[in-house]
């Protein structure tokens, strides 16, 4: 997180706000509710309390305007800049302006007013932008379900640095249930949901996020899954890159999605039964394309299936027990990928490296590819 220069904040904890005008995109009561909820996001974790006033000058004046709208920072039409707000101070300080050229909604279409407002009110209270891609104060908009929204831990730490915790919760002790945290690549206990190659990159999934590891550089990028692919679910089960079809397949539950490069393939998700897997397979834990046998390997429970994409059939003699095919990895596999002839199987915080003859070579940490 970051704060403004001098850690400027309000010298009081009771603040007023006033909604000066409304967007025609939403019903008045929906705007009222979205803005009130957005302020409560911050009240819940601090001593700050907000009172609405209907005339005069409030600490936080809220308005909708397009283009040049009365300050030195004109808006830019649809998309681009969605809104801005001013750091705590007298006058324009604390005020929040929303670009009327956007379409604000209560749902996932357009831009969700609650999410945009919760971010802007973070500025109104003294937070600047965060570099944490999972933080509410990350500058780029990404949709998350408002009904399950929970203020990320990075933002809680930032706002409590300025105002301290909510004295009405646990007597002001730090919240025992911290907000959601963005997966830390350098956590030695890191485990993965899924892993795949993608045209020379390695893509490692965890929760709502993924890392991009570039073979030619040690740098690793972390993004929200929905930053690149709004259509994909969080908490992916498995993923693999098919060298037959130049597609990446991603699995969750009994559904499969497909990517062509970084583009989502239309017509998905489909049921995994379309892959010709037996109906007894209701979920895939990990998947990898084996260049040696030119088969897709699916791991489910303590079993492994070898699948022929051309005939869309499971090979004779499968399923087999994982430990008979890949000795040493144990009874389950969280994720799998193949790179330069080596197969990497992930189980919890460890990853095993196998030669193309499936001889176990090394035991490594799961975050081996994450540049720690």
């Amino acid at each position, binding site marked *: 997180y970051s704060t403004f220069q001098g850690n400027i904040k309000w010298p009081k904890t009771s603040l007023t706000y006033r909604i000066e005008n409304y967007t025609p995109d939403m019903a008045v009561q929906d705007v009222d509710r979205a803005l009130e909820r957005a302020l409560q996001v911050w009240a819940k974790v601090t001593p700050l309390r907000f009172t609405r006033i209907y005339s005069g000058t409030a600490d936080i004046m809220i308005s909708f305007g397009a283009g040049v709208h009365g300050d030195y920072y004109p808006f830019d039409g649809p998309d681009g800049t*969605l809104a801005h*707000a001013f750091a705590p101070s007298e006058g324009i300080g604390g005020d929040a302006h929303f670009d009327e050229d956007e379409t604000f909604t209560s749902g996932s279409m357009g831009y969700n007013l609650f999410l945009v407002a919760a971010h802007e009110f973070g500025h109104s209270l003294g937070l600047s*932008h965060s*570099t944490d891609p999972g933080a509410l104060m990350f*500058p780029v*908009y990404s949709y998350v379900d408002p009904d399950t929204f929970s203020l990320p831990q990075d933002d809680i730490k930032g706002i409590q640095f300025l105002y301290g915790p909510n004295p009405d919760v646990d007597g002001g002790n730090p919240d025992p249930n911290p907000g959601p945290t963005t997966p830390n690549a350098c956590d030695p206990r890191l485990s993965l949901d899924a892993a795949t190659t993608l045209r020379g990159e390695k893509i490692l999934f965890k929760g709502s996020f993924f890392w991009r590891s570039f073979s030619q550089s040690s740098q690793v*990028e972390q993004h929200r899954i929905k*930053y690149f692919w709004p259509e994909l679910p969080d908490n992916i089960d498995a993923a693999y890159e098919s060298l037959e079809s130049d597609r990446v397949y991603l699995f969750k539950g009994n559904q499969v999605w497909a990517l062509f490069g970084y583009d989502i393939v239309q017509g998905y998700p489909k049921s995994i039964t379309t892959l010709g897997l037996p109906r007894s397979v209701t979920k895939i834990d990990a998947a990898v394309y084996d260049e040696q046998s030119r088969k897709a390997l699916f791991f489910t429970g303590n079993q492994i299936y070898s699948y022929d994409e051309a005939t869309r059939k499971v090979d004779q003699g499968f399923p087999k027990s994982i430990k008979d095919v890949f000795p040493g990895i144990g009874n389950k596999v969280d994720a799998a990928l193949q790179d330069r002839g080596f197969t990497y199987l992930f189980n919890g915080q460890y990853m095993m490296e196998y030669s193309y003859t499936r001889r176990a070579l090394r035991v490594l940490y799961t975050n081996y590819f994450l540049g720690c």
Partner: protein
Amino acid sequence: ACSLPIALPSTAKNDEEVAEAYLKRFFNLTTPEGPIQRRRISPMTEKVREMQRFFGLKVTGTLDSDTMQMMNKPRCGVPDVAQ
């Protein structure tokens, strides 16, 4: 003369314009006034790198597609670095 970022062959002119406007607005890129000092690296390249570091992108100093994609994402209008 200051060197402009290494323009990838595919870098459209308007990418540079988009990038310059973005970096001025959010990363405090200023257009050097007065005699152009001989600089090893242009202010624009420095700011491209600063932006790439902020967003956790590969730090190349060039307007690669990932960087341009990030610049074109809908976002908050408050600058990312102190003005």
